[in-house]
């Protein structure tokens, strides 16, 4: 244990472990910690008073300090206390984004997740709905699992604008006061969530892949990939409500739709102030000629760099169609122009969660892997036994896909007939 010139046992940062989050910098009561040129925290031993605060708060254990780690206990106590301080908020709410005349798939997926969370908290599921004609969707929301639906119907809400929707949703949340608010991490959801969180002065965690209730504190634990999916962070929001989170489509699973389910639907008044709203000049839906939404298929045969060949497509297509699936691709293939960008799987393409993912010549860069991790089964066909995708594959076939796939087509047919 190093001592400084005053004989105080000081803390030290382990540079290899530090992720440069600066939480210790903020916590240090004497300002002894600074980020160095490499983005790693450094403690000035002569300024350090050996209080161990940095040790307690470091999320990655990058502080070396001679002290019993009190963090677990104190964090727990702190959370319990905090949860009491924000009483008066109840229920798991979902913002129901519209898709055409109906609710979007991501909304129902979030309602499914909200039911699980509500179960853990012994509370209700609330749906928030904005639009000009959406009572039918409200009844759908009940069928998918909402106990209460709060809606604002207004001709001025027929078109999404940041300002009008931001105002309307803020008002609804303010009146209903849910403890949690989930929204789809779509273009609209992300645009809207930032407004509502800022207006309500509460915490918002983007693109969560896991949501849980902390057993001790009842707080929502929000886990999300960060640093381009290289690490996961679990985040909580202690003193502010609602605890807000956005979730990408296809990450959660919708529950059972039950048209007989009962729930209450409440309408809220809202006066729209047209002033200052943008004016829609043009709106174009760009649907590709083939109109394929790869996220909707139970089977995806995904062409990677190793199968970036126009002549391979019919073969992949045949395998996919055999099982009711579609052909998709990784980024290099989309960039080569062989398949359109709509078919691209990955961080810059679509997140998919088919029952069966078959990667053909896909190496499995991290940006691709995070976008397919929701798949039920993953099969990888690759000539390279070291390909990263094999680390997450349930089955790996090592070899030339032009030989393997015809054989697979043959054998799958046999299995279907038997």
């Amino acid at each position, binding site marked *: 244990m190093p001592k400084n010139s005053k004989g105080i046992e000081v803390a030290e940062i382990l540079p290899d472990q530090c992720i440069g989050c600066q939480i210790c910098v903020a916590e240090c009561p004497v300002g002894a910690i600074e980020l160095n040129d490499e983005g790693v925290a450094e403690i000035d031993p002569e300024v350090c008073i050996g209080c161990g605060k940095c040790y307690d708060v470091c*999320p990655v254990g990058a502080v070396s300090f001679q002290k019993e780690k009190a963090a677990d206990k104190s964090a727990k106590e702190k959370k319990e206390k905090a949860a009491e301080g924000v009483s008066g908020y109840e229920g798991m709410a979902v913002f129901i984004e519209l898709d055409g005349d109906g609710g979007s798939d991501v909304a129902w997926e979030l309602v499914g997740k909200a039911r699980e969370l509500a179960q853990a908290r012994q509370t209700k599921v609330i749906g928030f709905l904005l639009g000009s004609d959406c009572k039918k969707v409200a009844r759908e929301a009940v069928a998918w699992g909402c106990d209460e639906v709060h809606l604002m119907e207004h001709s001025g809400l027929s078109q999404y604008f940041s300002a009008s929707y931001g105002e309307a949703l803020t008002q609804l949340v303010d009146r209903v006061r849910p403890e949690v608010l989930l929204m789809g991490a779509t273009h609209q959801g992300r645009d809207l*969530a930032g407004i509502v969180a800022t207006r309500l*002065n509460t915490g918002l965690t983007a693109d969560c892949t896991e949501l849980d209730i902390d057993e001790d504190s009842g707080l929502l634990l929000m886990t999300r990939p960060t640093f381009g999916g290289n690490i*996961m962070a679990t985040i909580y*929001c202690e003193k502010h409500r609602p605890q807000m989170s956005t979730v990408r489509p296809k990450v959660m699973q919708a529950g059972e739709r039950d048209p007989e389910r009962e729930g209450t639907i409440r309408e809220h008044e809202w006066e729209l102030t047209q002033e200052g709203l943008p004016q829609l000049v043009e709106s174009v839906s760009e649907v590709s000629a083939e109109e394929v939404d790869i996220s909707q298929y139970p089977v995806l045969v995904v062409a990677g760099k190793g199968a970036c060949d126009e002549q391979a497509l019919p073969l992949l297509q045949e395998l996919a169609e055999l099982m009711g699936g579609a052909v998709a691709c990784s980024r290099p293939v989309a960039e080569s122009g062989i398949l359109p960008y709509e078919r691209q799987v990955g961080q810059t393409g679509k997140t998919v969660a088919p029952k*069966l993912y078959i990667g053909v010549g896909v190496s499995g860069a991290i940006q691709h892997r995070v976008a397919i991790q929701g798949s039920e089964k993953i099969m990888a066909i690759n000539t390279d036994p070291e390909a990263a995708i094999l680390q997450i594959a349930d089955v790996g076939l090592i070899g030339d896909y032009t030989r*393997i796939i015809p054989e697979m087509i043959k054998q799958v047919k046999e299995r279907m007939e038997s």
Partner: protein
Amino acid sequence: MHVVCLLKQVPDTAEVRIDPETNTLIRTGVESILNPYDMVAVEQAVRLREQHGGMVSAVTMGPPQAEAVLRDAMAQGADQVYLLSDRAFAGADTLATSYTLFKAVQKLDEQQTVDLVLCGKQAIDGDTAQTGPGVATRKGCSQLTYCQAVDWVDPDSRTIQVKRKLQDGFERLKAELPALVSAELELATPRRCPLPNLIRSLQAEIPVWDADTMGADKELLGLKGSPTWVQSIFSPQPKEPGPRFQAGEDPSRAVSEGLQTLFQDEDFAEKLLKH
């Protein structure tokens, strides 16, 4: 016109790797860069100044070494830059970050009325896309996220028209100034920096604004002003990889064994093979 660019210094995430032995980030050799979406925002800002005259300001919040991205912005053509750096800013989540950036925009507004705030749609390290809407909401200005093109800006009627990307297409919106525009990569292709700019950027003294300079409420800054806290950080749990089969010259056996493994769960097999 006064255009303000909000910048972020980010690690080049494509280079960040996990050490499989220790399960920690390998940081050595990972360069810090200007967030690529922000670079596009600076280019758009400079083009607007070239069209309409005025001034391009750029700010970033971060530790002292973050001034590197301000020099990048100057090299691209920004007229003035400020580093927002203060111990009190450390540990900020998106809510506290948007407050700090908003205070900077406010201060720049005192110099010359800010017409447009430009930023990247998101940063490549956090991917949250929350800071832009946060600043727009605090400023109470038009919010135009995911922009693929600025069609025109009319300083006289104080309006702007943009092309915004939607989930399945795009829309054109006409909105009032001031506005916040967040950039998709298509918005503008950054130019090669002219040599005189480059030299100027390397020689420039970068002024620093702290919390007091901006008149910021310390309760709303940094960790203190952040509702969200990080409980833990971990590497994604690697899934136990399944068996691998060597296909070789005659793949029939490998395929047979592979399919056997894949379809051993009868429910799963039924769903896919019987339809």
